[in-house]
């Protein structure tokens, strides 16, 4: 129960990073929040810590629209490294896009637990974190 909960936010929008951090801070949980500005950075981090469960995130909030490597590209790469991971990682796609194409595409990826449209409500985030905590 006292295990540290790793939250990973992959989004190039610093305002979003700021706001989500604020909300996460308000949740009482032994946690660590890591931010990446694009998919590639996040992927590099995960590849470097493949077997390091204490560093690997428990949950990822993934944006679609990012430079270098966007959310979908990240998912393509993630699927490749997934078999080597020992840790179950829950991934939420969080995007401001309400484009049905994007939503459908995200839902078709089985590794994505849900698609959340920005702005993410503090209540919603709290519920997600609570659920994840229950599962742990």
């Amino acid at each position: 129960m006292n295990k540290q909960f790793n939250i990973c936010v992959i989004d190039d929008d610093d305002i979003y990073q700021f706001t989500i951090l604020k909300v996460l801070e308000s949740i009482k949980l032994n946690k660590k929040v890591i931010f990446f500005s694009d998919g590639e950075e996040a992927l590099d981090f995960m590849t470097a810590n493949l077997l390091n469960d204490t560093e690997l995130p428990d949950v990822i909030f993934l944006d679609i629209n990012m430079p270098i490597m966007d959310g979908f590209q990240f998912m393509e790469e993630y699927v490749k490294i997934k078999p080597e991971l020992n840790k179950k990682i829950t991934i939420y796609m969080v995007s401001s896009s309400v484009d049905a194409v994007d939503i459908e595409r995200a839902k078709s990826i089985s590794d994505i637990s849900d698609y959340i449209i920005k702005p993410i409500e503090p209540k919603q985030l709290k519920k997600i974190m609570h659920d994840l905590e229950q599962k742990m």
Partner: protein
Amino acid sequence: MKVLEKSIKNRYILFVSTFILIILAMFFIVQHSINLQISDAHLINVSGRQRMLSQNISKLAYAINYSNSIGENTNRVKTLDSLLTEWESKHEYLQIYNENKWKNTSIDSLLKVNETYQEKIFNAGKNIVIKYTSGNIDVDVSKISLLEGDYLNNTDILVYEYQKATEEHLKELKLIIYLFVIISFLILFIEFVFIFNPGLKQIFQRNKELLKSNDSLSISEKKLKLSMLKLTKLKSELESSDFFYKTFIEQIPTAIAMLDNNLCYLAVSRTWIKDYKLEGKDVIGKSHYDVFPEIGEDWKEKNKKCLKGAIDKCDEAPFVREDGTTQWIHWDTRPWYKSDGSIGGLVMHTGDITKIKENESKKKRIEGILKKTNQLARIGAWEVDLINNNSYLSDVVRDIYGIPSDFEMSAEKGLEYYKEGESRDAIEKALKETIENGTPYDLEVELINTKGEVIWIRTTGQAELIDGKCVKIYGLFQDINSIKLAQLALHKTHTELKAIFNSNAVAIIATDLDGVINQFNPGAEIITGYTAAEVIGIEKPINFHLKEEYDNFKKDIAEFYGKNPVGFSPQLEMSMHNAYDTREWNYVRKDGTLIPVQLTLTSVKDENNVHIGYLGVSTDISERKKNQNKLLRKNQILNFAEEITLMGNWQVDVASNKVKWSNNLFKLTGIEETTETTTSTYLNITHPEDRQRVNNNMKRSIEEKVFTDIIHRIQLADGTIKIVQLLGQVIKDDLGNVVEMIGTCQDVTAQKLAETDLLRKNYILNFAERITQIGNWQWDVVTDTLKWSSNLYKIYEYDENIKDLNYDTFLSQVHPDDKDYITGYVENSFIEKKFPNNFIHRIITRSGKIKTVHYLGEVILNDQGEVIEMMGACQDITEQKMEENKFRGLLESAPDAMVIVDEAGKIQLINKQSEKLFGYPSEELIDQFVEILIPSQLNHNHYLDHNGLFSSPSNEQMGVDKTKELVAKHKNGNEIPIQISLSPLKTEEGILVSAAIRDITIQKLAQKKILDAKQDLEVLAQKLMIQNEHLADFAQITSHNLRAPVSNLNSLLGLYIDSNDHDEKQLLFQKFESVIKHLTFTLNTLVEAIKIRGDKSRPKENIRFIDVLDKTKELLSGEIIETNAVITSDFSKVSNINYNKIYLESIFLNLVNNAIKYKSKDRTPVIKIETELFEGRTKLTISDNGLGINLNRHGDKIFGLNKVFHRHPEARGVGLYMTKTQIEAMDGEISVVSKINEGSIFTVIF
């Protein structure tokens, strides 16, 4: 145990090696001390010798001094010198030894003292040696003698010292050895205590354990032995009980077998062995299925069930053994249980019931036979219960009645079947009698069964009486129809015989054994002229015969039986052989005249075959005789006639197969007249190929009782082949059987040959006529007689036998519609005296068929020029006509216009559709060139003028797949688009070309419309697609680029509202600012893009590329200087462009700026800008050696808004979006190729 062994071994090795080491050490110590002792002794010895030497020296010195003999002295000096040398060297040895080894101070000091003496003595000695000649040696001698005493004393002390030292050495040695021994003991003791002892202890321990286990082993062995004993006991008990069971089972008088779980025999009873014929076989221990391999799977299955506890019983079943015999057995198979309640195997108890079964089947068989017999004899039983009027009828009875088995029969009903009249009256009466008086009956009466057959039956009836009253009648019922009929037939025959006997035609005379007449019928009275009363009991028939005839008869018979004719009774002899004799006799009548008779003599026997008399049956043959004679005469005439006509006659007696030939037949066939002929004689001369046919003909004649005339070949002995005709007749007896055949045989060779020739010719003619459907005719005009050939009859379907044909016959067959003009034709031919050549008309044949015939003919004139005859041929052209009509019909019914053209390109035939299509009536087109309809066309005429396709039609050029679209011409000059397909038509007149032509004006129009519509749609679709793309892009932009900042604003607002901290609010407010800024920027970009897209009225001007580049360089001068970028350009191919200046500048700025911005860290940026013409458009390429873009990853969105591909602080993702927007707004395209870390090439096509 191994570990222990190893550790003990290790310890042992250690111990032994220590021991060896100690011994070795000891050996070295002892060796050393011995060496020491030796050297000590040597030293003492040496020092002793020194003393002795010094004495010798002094002695010698004296001697030399006191001797005058120079010779002696010389020797002495020599000795002295050597002694001195030895002395000196020994001394040095001692000194060195002591200095190096002993280091004994007292010895050393003594030696030093000695040395002083020695030196002096030595020097004195040496002086003596040198000076002895001079004789001045006294001083030296005195010196020596003076010193000698001291030296000797000192040397004595020295020897003593040596001895002392030696003793000390010995003491030391002793001490060392003691010490050594002590140490050795100590080591060994320690080893023993710490190393060897624990091992031993372990061994002891182990040993103890071993002993212990040994003990327990022996105990368990004992136990084992005990249990073995028990086991043996048990086994023997078991064996004895087994034995008991075995013996018990063996003794059981029924067939029983005990099997284990594997179905192997444990025990079997003797009966089992006997029942299954297993004597001499040892079955115990063997598998049941091995003993009985014939056991089938079904039984095995049953056994398996029994092994699971089931009980299998069967009362009877056939058991087919391997040797093929069948045993009927019953069985009871059940499991037996062991003491622990488990199933130990099976017990089979069986019984052989084959014998019983056989008896049963025998009984069944007998019953069957009985039933069969009943059926055969057709005897059945019946009974009628009079009280309730029930009846029982056996199957046979029902069968005789012809009623089904479920038919209810009552007494009344049964009576109805009897034939009315006699039969029914009889049965009714009999039944009445039986019922009333109990009288049984047995009647033969007629019955009419359900099939309507009248059958004779025998029925018996018997009453069952209770208290004198009849309650039941029963009896038998037999179909005696055949018997009865036979009886009746016999009766009839008898009557007939009687009639014969009494008839006048046959004379019957019977005698007793003595030959006295006892029967004499009326016939005999007539033939002989005697009355019966005159001869019976009085006369003997022999008196009616001529003596010589009787003698001849006697002789013949005697000869036949090989007897002596003297005293011989031919009748008696024949009676013994049951023989008879038939021959012609002449009776001597009462009035003395002779009458020829045919008499058959035989003996008469009673039913016991006892000879009781003789019988003679004779007929008057005088009439026959007369005829015979007549016949003979006629025969002679016939022979004569035959000779002339090359004919012979023959006669076959069918029964005896005897054949009589006329003389001429012998001549004809070249066979000797004396030859005995039979049918086979004739068959032998029959030509081999005809033999079978002739033989069959003969047989058939007999069977069918009609002789069929036959013509065939015969082959004479000399090889001549003749054709003969056999004519004949059969002669039947009273019963209608053929008894004889007679006939003629005529040589028809010459006739036949002529005939065949004619036939052949006729046949050929007929054949020819048939093939060509031609007949010929001949009309005698004067007599009005018409003659037709056989085929003409066929054409008209007329009976060939009708010969009286005339003109009316002909006319009557003409089709009514054609009659008028045919009559006209005929009349005309008389006037013209010429037969018309188009004499074609229809006829109606006898069967009603309509045919078309074509008459060809000639008229024959007489001298006066009058027509007297017409003759010619008539051909059935119905089929040709039909073909033509069919073709015509086909042509007309074709949906397309059909034009048939000949090889010259002239139109031969067109159909109605063609007339309609081209506007010409058919007459106007026939024999015109096809070009009237389809003018030569530049691009097609190479095959569609009459020198082209129409003149050399071939399948490759024509056919459906060669359908062509051409233009045809209407009569009114209008052009018609047509589709034409050509195919060749092979006809007798040469090859024609048939062209199917279809007007495709409507199709053409429709096609054009569709094509136009399609083109419009494509343009529209293109436009829509572009619009769609833009819309999709815009959706993407609003979704990502506009919603993102808005959602950020929302989040910030939420935080702002929740926040109570002033500082935090301040911070949040700053964030608001940045978001709003970003949003404003994005909106501006978008607005600008939309403006670019929407504004179509952008001013264009002629711009030089170099000017634009210069301006770009100017704007980017700072960056260029900073990065040392090298920008080269080549606008030589296309130097100017008519374009919007602002856009072009913006495009250049963005692309060049990007090339510099995303330069490689390792390379100085080199940018090449070139223009060229590409498909009539201007192409601009800007290539760099920068970072490059991963197009696999970003290819699809490189030109999107806010798309960034490098972590560059200035990357904002706007430049390329705007560039693309501008280029596309001007209807251009932009594309990129790139390779990571090599560079990118942007290509703009304006």
